């Protein structure tokens, strides 16, 4: 394994009083993918949200390039691209407008890779359409295009293959491979086979877990 850029140590999370995971530790290096697997309710989404800083962990540390993310959360957030259960798209804005706004909210002044992101998910023909007129799969593709456009080094993805047809799944795999080949990192909660080489972390018990190769 490459030296870890992202290091999780003894991370513990509770949700509604229930211990979701306890003293979870793993590291992720350049170009690595970690697939989070486990039954419904095993804590995959909770782990992703805790990593993003969307929910507080009860204990443990998250380090990015050696520095605790809690010390500089703004810098940490600038490293993330997030795809949740919900697409994070405004129905009354077009695909292009949604992508540009998302980038500007990330503090990017000039959005110059838009065409490439649209092309990666075959969205050129849909770019000018309001998102509310798109199918669930098309909306998911637009959300994935937002992730690609961000150029963030760490992708946090919750069920990225949801609602995607075979060609869109392949487009996602290609985009993920390109991201990893460029030294990016990705953590994806999934019930389906991602089809990209990486490690797997199975969640589901409250015993300490380690990522396995």
């Amino acid at each position: 394994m490459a030296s870890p850029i992202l290091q999780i140590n003894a991370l513990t999370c509770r949700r509604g009083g229930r211990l979701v995971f306890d003293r979870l530790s793993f590291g992720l290096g350049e170009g690595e993918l970690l697939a989070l697997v486990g039954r419904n309710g095993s804590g995959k989404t909770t782990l992703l949200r805790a990593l993003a800083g969307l929910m507080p962990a009860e204990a443990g540390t998250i380090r990015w390039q050696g520095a605790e993310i809690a010390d500089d959360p703004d810098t940490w957030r600038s490293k993330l691209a997030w795809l949740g259960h919900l697409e994070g798209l405004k129905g009354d804005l077009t695909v292009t407008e949604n992508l540009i706004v998302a980038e500007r909210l990330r503090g990017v002044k000039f959005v110059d890779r838009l065409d490439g992101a649209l092309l990666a998910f075959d969205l050129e023909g849909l770019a000018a359409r309001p998102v509310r007129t798109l199918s669930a799969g098309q909306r998911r593709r637009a959300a994935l295009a937002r992730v690609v456009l961000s150029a963030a080094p760490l992708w946090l993805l919750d069920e990225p293959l949801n609602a995607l047809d075979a060609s869109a799944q392949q487009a996602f795999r290609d985009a993920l491979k390109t991201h990893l080949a460029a030294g990016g990192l990705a953590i994806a909660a999934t019930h389906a086979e991602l089809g990209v080489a990486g490690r797997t972390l199975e969640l589901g018990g409250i015993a300490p877990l380690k990522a396995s190769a």
Partner: protein
Amino acid sequence: MNGFTALLMRDLRLVWRRPGDVGVVLAFFVVATVLFPLGIGPEANVLARIAAGVLWCAALFAALLSLERLFASDHEDGTLDLLLLAPWPLELAALAKCAAHWIVTGLPLSLLAPFLGIAFGLDGQSLLALGVTLLVGTPTLSLIGGLAAALTLGARRSGALLALLALPLCVPTLIFGAGAIETLAAGEGIVTHVAILAALALVALATTPWAIAAALRQAGE
């Protein structure tokens, strides 16, 4: 364009795409206000006396109408997560959302109110004072309403809860806003009232974005 401006412009664009949302607010304001002269009768003295209170109350209720959706739509479509993950202060995002709300409700209500004041027989000076007090006072309604909207995000019956939370906090603004017109009718100036309204707005500006951000972080967990 920075994140604050991008969010402000996004929300204004969304309103532009769905003008009916603002139309309903303004229509409610007009209908609610016009009902009073019809119900009370054409006695000019009575109407002129209650005009400021009626118009201020109607403006407050109209502003509350659209507040329930201020953060709820972002919560429902997942864009709230993007705001929470933006690498700039969430307090500024809260302020941008409230500013957009004021531009599409408080501002048009302030401009519309003097015209409705004519139906109550207000004189020119009172009409002007009404517009000025609403312009200075309505930002407070958007900020306090934004806080109530954030606190009730995801709650059942959030609309009723929002009103219960926001209305008591808006009472000082309501008193000094409506009171300015009565002061004017008594032959005194409204400078003190406007200054107090501005002070209330500044206090809301200095405090509510932090409270809204904290409530949004809680809702995002």
